[in-house]
């Protein structure tokens, strides 16, 4: 469940943008992505993919994503929630 404390429209938009970045980085089609997919097991093959994904997310949302904060992020849903919380604290630029 997406739990970003954003309204529905913002939440859908956020989800779409995160999935779009994941699709770009992984080369997978967006309609193949599901919120319960594991970042490491289902999406990114190695640490380079993971670093690239977080760099692309930083660029997409204008946020700095410190490495020590991304450890608990395991699934796409975790990622959407993480970005949502950061946007709430530090709005999209």
């Amino acid at each position, binding site marked *: 469940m997406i739990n970003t404390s954003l309204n529905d429209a913002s939440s859908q938009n956020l989800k779409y943008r995160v999935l779009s*970045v994941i699709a*770009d*980085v*992984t*080369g*997978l*089609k967006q309609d*193949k992505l599901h919120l319960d997919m594991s970042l490491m097991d289902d999406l990114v093959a190695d640490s*380079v993919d993971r*670093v*690239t*994904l977080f*760099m*692309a997310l*930083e*660029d997409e949302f204008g946020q*700095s994503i410190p490495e020590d904060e991304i450890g608990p992020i395991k699934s796409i849903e975790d990622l959407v929630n993480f970005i949502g919380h950061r946007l709430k604290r530090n709005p999209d630029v």
Partner: protein
Amino acid sequence: MKNQDRIVITGAGIICSLGQHIQNIWEDILQGKAISQPIPEQWSTYSDFKSQFWAPLPKRDYSCYGLGRSDKLRMDEVTMLSIGASYQALETANLSFSPRDDKANRFVIEDYTPHRFGIYFGTGTGGINTTLSAHTTHLLKQKAVESDYNIPFEKRYNPLAVSMLMPNAAAAATGIRFGAEGPNRTTSLACASGTAAIGEAFQAIKRGDIDVALSGGMEFLSDPYGSIFRSYDITGALTRGFNEADACNRPFDQHRNGFLFGEGGAGVLVLERESHAKARNATIWAELCGFEETFDCHNLMSIEPSGQQIKNMIHKSISNCGFTNNDFTYINAHGTGTSINDEVELNIIESIFGQKPLINSTKGFIGHTIGASGAIEAAITALSFRDNLIHPCNNLVNPIRDLNFPLQSITKPIGPAISQSFAFGGHNCCLILNDY
């Protein structure tokens, strides 16, 4: 193994100051279109430059080569230039490639056996843009924030810097992208890098190591401060003193005084064993008959004035291919436009070939792209065979020798031709091509 097979060129790709599609670039050069523009104004913040012009790359669209957002984050520009030129080369060779898996960014070339497909690239400086960018961020990030310096730089230290700056990144990334599991080599011989890389691919096919190669050269020499430009400018090798951008790039002309710095580019050829190309009904542009190299052993930054080692190289390559000096009809010269290089090169050509062969300089239209230049020129020479067309010389008003310089494009079937490169360091390389 069919080592007696000839080696043929079946496709090529170019990205340079004239654009990112080989056919358009070729047509522009044939029509005499040249690129020369003032250097960026912001560079004057950091230095005064003797040379005021360069040949920048146009804005690039890499999406047409399948490169997306993540590729731009993972790759130095030199690697994207390489993949773009390689993609074009494979397309012009009429090869179909399909995605390797459900991800859309890696391919399998259907007519190639992966382990018999090699990559041979040359570059003078590899991912120098990433090196400088990471170094600048490392030095300036904290100080710039504290002191409000007005210096533009990447705010994020690039966590992928190593895999982007290493000179072999372009060849490795291209091999991964197109499923080339054969030898994957990177050669660095400054301005002769691309020519040397093609020569190495030629030798590998000749030895029977592989059947097919993507081979060529690539360079990207840009930074926001003009630092790389300055390193060439300070040597006095660049064109200077001209008021008009269009007049400054003039190889073989009495009023030349240096080369026009090119921001970068890439040239990649598809080389194939003849039997392999025939088996898939490929269109053969030209035969690559030979490659030779010599070393001046003289000076890191200046050509040896007698040109003896270059003469030795040319004589050996002609003899190895079974030709005579009189057979040669076209020379795509190194033709930088520096005083001494042009003088020495034309002395050599005249002493070996007399006044017969047509001589031109591709650098006269696109600037000098260092490690990419020799490969771009080899691709242009292959196009000359494919289309029976020789491009003109740019700005050649008062030639320094009475030789056979085309001033307009010439339509003419050509026989054996040489594409040659001479590099800082003293490296000399040449390729011999012929009509197939």
